[in-house]
Each structure stands twice: as structure tokens, then as C-alpha cells.
């Protein structure tokens, strides 16, 4: 018993002396002079502690509305009309009843066959009888308020009738709560509660050492507490960070470039002919504002122009068309990370070197569960005199194991406009099975030699979204850029 007493919250303590069997909520509130919400909380806690039970009943009470109250004093409009017709037939304009009540009065009396309606309104025999008899509606109005279940059959008829009229009747559901004490509760109400327990430990209590002779109130440690959310990182960002650090460990330097690019870096440097279908509006975004950027220095531009037109000094035939610098100046949101590699190579690269980027790209797709309009690509370039197809495969296999946790890899011939030879890599993931991991190749000499790079440059790109979706346990790719706060708050890495 003392055990329970020591866990009681001050509100429970305050309410306990007023508790008795079958006491109503209202009464309890009045007696204790506590606020409604305080009484409710204290009762619920005590119910959890099996001190009492809260019984909720609901009653339907029929009461008078605004007009109902008026008619309780003034008589119903149909009564007033009937009385005016007692002596004379009247035409409508002679009747002394406000317009808004007149129609109802006529309607009601017609229903009761008390009047005839011609040019004039005339009382019937039935009507005359009713002059001395109370209407059911009048009877009911006198007796209200009343509980719905207590109505007689006649009253019910009158109730249904009056309910249809404006603001005469008000039907209310009233909930009443009554408290029943359990055996424990009954004992508890007899208990002495004036134990001097410490509620909140304050600096003052510590300073004056008043805690030394007192007990602390025990908390109900199992009670649920309001949820709190701490600040944390976005799950997809965390995933990308992990991959970034892995790449840095593997000796890669991060490279970057602008989100808005000239077609020169997005396509021309990469030896994509200017009339190539991949450069059309259906495959890439174009800009309305701003529209044209600037080209780098003439030396680079001229060498790129020659590479396209006749291969320049690269030993290639080129595409055999007239290259147009105005097309190369057009601006667009970057369509692939290879534009970042292109920028890096134009700036010049060390030998040997490894560069990477995980960067945003844009493509005019429809946003749905499997497509994003804005997404991250991961790409790397590696140069060294020793780069060959065999070392390319060696490095890809190594990445597949390090980055994607692959168990086995397979290579397929593929086509990318910028690389020759080109290869697609598939990896066997312990959980996902065989997945297409990405593509790679050795940059065409029309690209590297044009930029004055004499060593072969291998380029690779991995699709990281699918891996991210697996790690984050999501089926809808849009969750990588989630607008769902609940999901972000609760998301965990797999």
C-alpha cells in the first residue's frame, strides 16, 4: 500500500480525498476545484494503476432551441392563426402573423385538416374542435427538457414533427463519466496521504539539504512519454559520404564542376557530334535563361573543332561535318558527370592520377517511382601509362568488391560515345543477385589526344541509386530526395 502511495503524482494526491464510489466527473471537478484536464489526467493515471475504473455513459437530451423557448411563452404560430380564424374568414393580408411564421402555420393547420384554403382562409369543423384542445407539439414543448428514451409514443410523434422545423428542438448527446473504485481504490481512500514526498529535485533542495529526511515520490517508469526527434543526417547523404570516403581511401581526388554547363563540356569535348540524337531536346534539358555561355581559349576550341571535322592529329577520320561554335556555347543543366571529367581533363591532369565525383545531373524524365529528373551519378577517371583493357577490368573488379560488396563480376561489350573499348560491368551482390553496376571504357583518342593527354585515360561510372535504395530499404527512388519528414525521422541504414 505504501508502495502505491509513494508513486502518486501530486495531481492524483490532490484528487484522492474527494473520490468515492459512483461519483460523477462533474461533481468531482467541482469538489476538488481542479481543472478539467487535471482531473482527467489524474483519473487516467489511477485507472492505469488499477485504483479505479472510469465508466462512460451517453444520454440523448431533447431541449428547446431558440424558437422553442419563444413558443414556450408565446404560443405556436399555428395556434395564433387558428384563434384569429375563430370568428372570421380572412384573406392572407389580413392575418396578423409575421410572414416567416405564416407559411408554417398554414402548412401545419392544413396537415391537421383544421383549415380550408381558398381566396380566403376558413376554419373547418375539425379546426373548431381543436380550438379547445392542446396540440401534441404544445404538450411536448411544455415538458422539455427530457431524455429521448423517456418520450411517450405521442411525444415521439410531436418530436419528429418539431425536429423538422427551424430551431425549435435541440438534440444533444451528453456524456457522463462515473467513477467506480476498485478494492485497492477503496483501501487507498482510507489511507493517510500526507506523506511529505519530494516531487521535483530543485537546486534549493540540494543547497538546503532538505532531501536528507525525505523520500522522493516514485515515478511510474513504465508510462509512455511524448516522442522526441533528435537532429540527424539525411540517409542518402550518409550513404553517399560513405562511398566518397571509400573512394578517397582508394586514392581518388574529388573533382567538381558547375551545374549549368556549356554544350562544349557536356558534349563537344567528349566527341559527341553536334547532330547526334542524344543532344536533342527529348534527351536533355536546354535553357531559356541564360542561353549562351563562353568557350575556353581558342587553342582548345580549335583542336576540338578539328577532332570533330577531320580527326585533327589524333589519327581519326572525325565525323566529317562542319563544327559550329555557336552550338557549343549553348547552356544546359549538366546531363552527365562525364562533363565534370571533361572539365578536369581540359584543366590538365597529373600522371598517374585518379579523380572522382558524385554529382548531380539532370534529364527530362517523368518523375516516378523508378525515374528521377535530377539524380546523382558517380564517375571516376584514371590515367597512367599502364592503363589498358586488362587493367581497366582489374580496377572495375576491385571497385565492384570494395564499393558494391560484389562477390563475382561479369563484363559485357557496350557502347558509350566517349569510350572505345567500352564495357558494362555486372556484379553478383550477396542479397540483390546479379545487378548492372555501371559502364566503363578508355576515352577515345579524339578526346584525350585533342586535350594534349598522351597517356590512356580510363573512365568509369557506377549507378549508385540502386545500391542506395537497397541499403536504405526503399522501393521508390523518390525517397532518396524524400519530402517525408516522418520517414526521415525514423529512417535507419540497413
Amino acid at each position, binding site marked *: 500500500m505504501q508502495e502505491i502511495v509513494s508513486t502518486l503524482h501530486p495531481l492524483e494526491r490532490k484528487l484522492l480525498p474527494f473520490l468515492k464510489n459512483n461519483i460523477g466527473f462533474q461533481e468531482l471537478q467541482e469538489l476538488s476545484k481542479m481543472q478539467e484536464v487535471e482531473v482527467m489526467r489524474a483519473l487516467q493515471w489511477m485507472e492505469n494503476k488499477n485504483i479505479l475504473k472510469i465508466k462512460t455513459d451517453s444520454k440523448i437530451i431533447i431541449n428547446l432551441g431558440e424558437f422553442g423557448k419563444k413558443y414556450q411563452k408565446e404560443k405556436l404560430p399555428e395556434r395564433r392563426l387558428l384563434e384569429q380564424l375563430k370568428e372570421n374568414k380572412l384573406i392572407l393580408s389580413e392575418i396578423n402573423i409575421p410572414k416567416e411564421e405564416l407559411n408554417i402555420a398554414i402548412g401545419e393547420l392544413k396537415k391537421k385538416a383544421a383549415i380550408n384554403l381558398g381566396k380566403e382562409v376558413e376554419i373547418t369543423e375539425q379546426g373548431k374542435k381543436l380550438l379547445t384542445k392542446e396540440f401534441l407539439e404544445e404538450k411536448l414543448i411544455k415538458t422539455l427538457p427530457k431524455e429521448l428514451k423517456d418520450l411517450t409514443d405521442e411525444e415521439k410523434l410531436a418530436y419528429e414533427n418539431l425536429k423538422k422545423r427551424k430551431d425549435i428542438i435541440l438534440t444533444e448527446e451528453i456524456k457522463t463519466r462515473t467513477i467506480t473504485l476498485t478494492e485497492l481504490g477503496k483501501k487507498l481512500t482510507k489511507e493517510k496521504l500526507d506523506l511529505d514526498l519530494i516531487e521535483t529535485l530543485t537546486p534549493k533542495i540540494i543547497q538546503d539539504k532538505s532531501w536528507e529526511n525525505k523520500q522522493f515520490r516514485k515515478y511510474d517508469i513504465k508510462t509512455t512519454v511524448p516522442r522526441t*526527434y533528435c537532429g540527424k543526417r*539525411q540517409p542518402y547523404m550518409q550513404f553517399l559520404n560513405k562511398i566518397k570516403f571509400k573512394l578517397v581511401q582508394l586514392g581518388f581526388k574529388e573533382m567538381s564542376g558547375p551545374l549549368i554547363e556549356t554544350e562544349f563540356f557536356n558534349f563537344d569535348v567528349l566527341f559527341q557530334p553536334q547532330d547526334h540524337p542524344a543532344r536533342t531536346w527529348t534527351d536533355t534539358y536546354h535553357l531559356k535563361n541564360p542561353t549562351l555561355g563562353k568557350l575556353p581559349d581558342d587553342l582548345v576550341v580549335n583542336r576540338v573543332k578539328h577532332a570533330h571535322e577531320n580527326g585533327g592529329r589524333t589519327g581519326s577520320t572525325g565525323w566529317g561535318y562542319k563544327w559550329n561554335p555557336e552550338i557549343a556555347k549553348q547552356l544546359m543543366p549538366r546531363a552527365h558527370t562525364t562533363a565534370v571529367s571533361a572539365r578536369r581533363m581540359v584543366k590538365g591532369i597529373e600522371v598517374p592520377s585518379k579523380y572522382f565525383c558524385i554529382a548531380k545531373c539532370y534529364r527530362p524524365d517523368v518523375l516516378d517511382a523508378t525515374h528521377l529528373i535530377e539524380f546523382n551519378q558517380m564517375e571516376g577517371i584514371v590515367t597512367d601509362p599502364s592503363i589498358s583493357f586488362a587493367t581497366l577490368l582489374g580496377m572495375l573488379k576491385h571497385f565492384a568488391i570494395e564499393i558494391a560488396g560484389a562477390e563475382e563480376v561479369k563484363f559485357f561489350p557496350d557502347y558509350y560515345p566517349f569510350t572505345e573499348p567500352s564495357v558494362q560491368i555486372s556484379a553478383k551482390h550477396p542479397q540483390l543477385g546479379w545487378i548492372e553496376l555501371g559502364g566503363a571504357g578508355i576515352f577515345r583518342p579524339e578526346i584525350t589526344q585533342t586535350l594534349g593527354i598522351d597517356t590512356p585515360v580510363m573512365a568509369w561510372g557506377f549507378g549508385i541509386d540502386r545500391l542506395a535504395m537497397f541499403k536504405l530499404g526503399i522501393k521508390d527512388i523518390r525517397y532518396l530526395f524524400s519530402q517525408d519528414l516522418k520517414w526521415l525521422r525514423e529512417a535507419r541504414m540497413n
Partner: protein
Amino acid sequence: MPTIDISLKDLSKLVGKEITLENFEPEALLWIKGEIDGIDGDNLKIDCKESNRPDLWSTEGIARAVSPFYTKERGIRKYKVEDSDVYLHVDRSVDKIRPYISAAIIEDITITDDLIKQLIQIQEKVTTTFGRKRKAAAIGIYDFDKMTPPITYKAFKPTELKFIPLGFTKEMTLKDILIHHPKGQEFAHLLTDFDKYPIVIDNKDIVASMPPVINSESTGKVTEKTKNLFIEVTGINLDDTQVALNIVVCALADRGGKIKTVLVDYGEKHLRTPDFTPKRIKVKFTEIEKITGMKFSLKELKDLLEKQQYEVKKAKDCLEVEYPSYRQDIMHPVDVIEDILISYGYNKVTPILANLATTGELSPIEEFCEEIRELIPGFGAQELLNFTLTNKEILFKKMNLKEENCVEIANPVSNKWTNLRNAIIPSLMDFLEHNTSQEYPQQVYEVGDIVIINDRAETKTDTRKHLAWALADKEANFTKAKQIITYILTGLNIDFQIEEESNDSFITGRCARIIANKKVLGYFGEIHPKVLQNFSIEFPICALELDITELFILKK
């Protein structure tokens, strides 16, 4: 790139060996860089990834390329070609419009259902991708028995000539065909810049076609009764027309047609087409070894190349090889070297792990962003990653701001994604609007990219890193935002001043800008209730926006 429909039965017939999914998909399919995109019984959809090999975009082309995998066929396939006495006169009037035409005659062909399907497929795929939507190459195929040579290729005025376009019943002027015929409407833009339109017409003045738009009803219809075909390809570059013509002619010859040439008369010069003279390229042995990373004997190389339909002509200092006339993807020796590797098999190559002495590092600005990103959750904020694509409604109208010059997409897929953001607070507001049913307080932040217009920049824009933070809570106020700004900036040892800022997104007198070294670093304050109402948010919000790129420069 293009997706090709083929039937395995048809493919087997053309190769002369039983081909099933089991003996096709694992290896032979890789030779053509194909991937199966759909299977419907015997019919396959093949995704041909190589966008520079129009010769592979038909069952006949695929059959020819994989034939050495199943049979003893090696090297370049030889076709028997006879010369005809048919002339094709090219009038100088087409010079500025569509100057080149190459043509051929196919005799004694049995037109089957499969063939008609493939002819339609070749025409469509070759002219769409390789032909740049008919601009660079358009193919016309006619019932030759309905034509009377010599044939003339000549330009006419839009109302000077009438003919019945394919699928129609009435004669129409050239002009009307471009206006009313569906194909006319689709391809009119290729002609309407000119005052005359090119026409292929026979000696009896019967129109065969108006390239690159439409054939005539009278000769341009091929049915199962057709025996002999006339084929022409028009374009703006002679090579392209010849490559496309050879692709069609080889496909028909593979199905038993007899090839006859046509003499194309350009006035000062004459050309006999089709011309099957193989093309030639030199590849250095050292280059093969360097790129593949492997040593091959000459015999091995010869064998690998012949399987890929090359023929080795000389092998002294370098390898001199010939390849079929219809291939136009070989621009550089590396293209041949890739074919050697495909012939060898990618998965037979032993991967070598090269050990390169390089040191890795993050880009300094990214590293700095990461430091900031790690700092903010300590205040209880949830990190977000929002799209940089947004719209003017969110950036300006709902933020109660006047429209500013910002990056705008010319071809947006939806009016939700029309602009690149120039600040991050609007992204946070949009996010908070989506989450009004979630528990408050809601505290969020993002460090990410924004793009502003800069006329002096190479790309007329600057991509910058910003931090934005927002707190939606009944107790959100100016003080909370200022505490965070102060914590970040003093932590970075930045000397800064706060000045009053007038910004219509914020409550007047409760918005400040942050100044350091005479540069504006950002702004913060209490969001105006009008803005809250625009985003349907019923909690006070305090927010800040900080230019991390500027801060980074300052820090350096």
C-alpha cells in the same frame, strides 16, 4: 539505342543454323552489343546499344554479324553485283536542297511477310537514328516494274507538280502534300526553307517520290506480288547515302535478291552504285598490345578479326585490314581493337590490378560543407536533400518576393520543375508545407547547391553552396536563428556584423543580414505570416540562409 524486332526462326533461316535463346543470348548476342528487351514466343526485342552500327538494325544485319559464331563463314561477305544500263540523272536544281542520291536495283526477290516487316524496320531505324530523322538519309523503295528508266532526280516548285501520295487517292500539289499528308506534316520542316522540292521522277513523268517525305501511290507500294525493286537513298552527304543504300541492298541480297547497279549521273562525274569496295584501315601492333594489355600472335589476330568480318591484307609494320562498305563506325584504330576484344571475349581477359601511387582527397569546398553539415544536427535539426529544380511560384510568389533573374529551363517536363533554385529557404518551406500533419517542432536544414546568374561567368551562372535552416515551432523566433548563426560564425572565428535587412519574406524589423569583410554572408529572421499562409503552415518559422561558398573564401 534502337530496339529491333526479330524472330528466332527467321534468324535461324538466314544463318542456316538452328538458333535458340539458349545458344544466342549468352555469347552471340554480345557480339552485336545487344540486350534482350522483351520475349514473346519466338519473337525477340533486342536493344542494340551501338548507335553507330545501322548495319545491325535488322534481322538480316544481325544474322550476318553473328554468322561466323555459328558457321565457318569468315571475313567480308561477298555479293554478286551486275551492272544494269539504268541511268539516274541528277539535275543541278537539287544541289542546294538535298544534293546526293545513291540507287540500286534488286531483281527476282520473293517478297514475304518477314521481308516486308524487316524492310519497314530497316527504313525506320536507319533513317531515324543514323539518318538523323531523314535529314541525313532517307530511303525510298519502289516497284521497279512500274517505272520507266531513265530516272531523274530534280527539284520542282511547290505548285508546279502534282502526284498521289502513298495511302491517298487524289492528286495533290507538292505544297498541299506537305500541308495535308501526315508524313508531309511530320517532315515538312526539312523542305519548307527551300523554294523548290526534290522529286524522283521517271521517263514517263510518273513521280516516284518526294524525298525525304513520301513515296507516290503509283510506284511506291511494295506488295507480295512485287518482283523487282528500285531503291534510292537521298541525303546531304554522299557517304551516308551509300552506307544506307548498302545496308538495304545487302539485306535484300541476303534474302535471295539479285543486285544490279545504277549509273548516277551528276553531270561532270558519274558514279556506279551500290559500291561494295571494302574500306581499309591500318592498326599498329604496338597499339593493339597497349590498349588490350595482351600479346596476340598474328594468327590469333587474323582469326579474331575474320570472325568479326574483317580481312587482313598486309601485316608488316602494322596490320592493314579491310572491312565491309556498310560499316561507318570505324573512325580510328581503337574501333578495330575493340572488335578484336569482343571477338576474343571480354570475360576471357584476365583482369590486372594496377597499383598506382596516388593520394585521395575530398574537394576542399565539399569538405568544408561536410563540416557544416555535421554541426547542425547538434541543434536538433534533421538534414534534408531537396531537388535543385523548382519553380517561380515557390521561389518568389509564395515567398512574397519580386521575381528575380534566375535559371529557367526551356523544355521542362512539368510546370513544377521549371527553374533552378537561387536560395534554399524556399525548398525548406516547400518541404515543411508537405509535412504539416507531422509532429512539431520541425527543425530542418540543407547544405546544397544553388545557381545564380552571373553575366561575367563562363557559364553565365555561378553554382554556389548554401546552408539553409528553419525551425517551425510555437516558440520559433529571431533569437533562435541568431543563436545558430552566432554559434556557427564564432566557431569558425569569423568577425561579423548584423544589420537590419528588408526582405519581404520576413517580418519587418525581425530580419537581419550578416556582414563579414564587407561581404553579405546571408540573412535570417522570422518568416512573415503572409508567407506562412502561402505555404499553408500554421506555426511560426524562423529561418536562415548562409552563403557557404563566400564563407569558405573568407575562411581561406
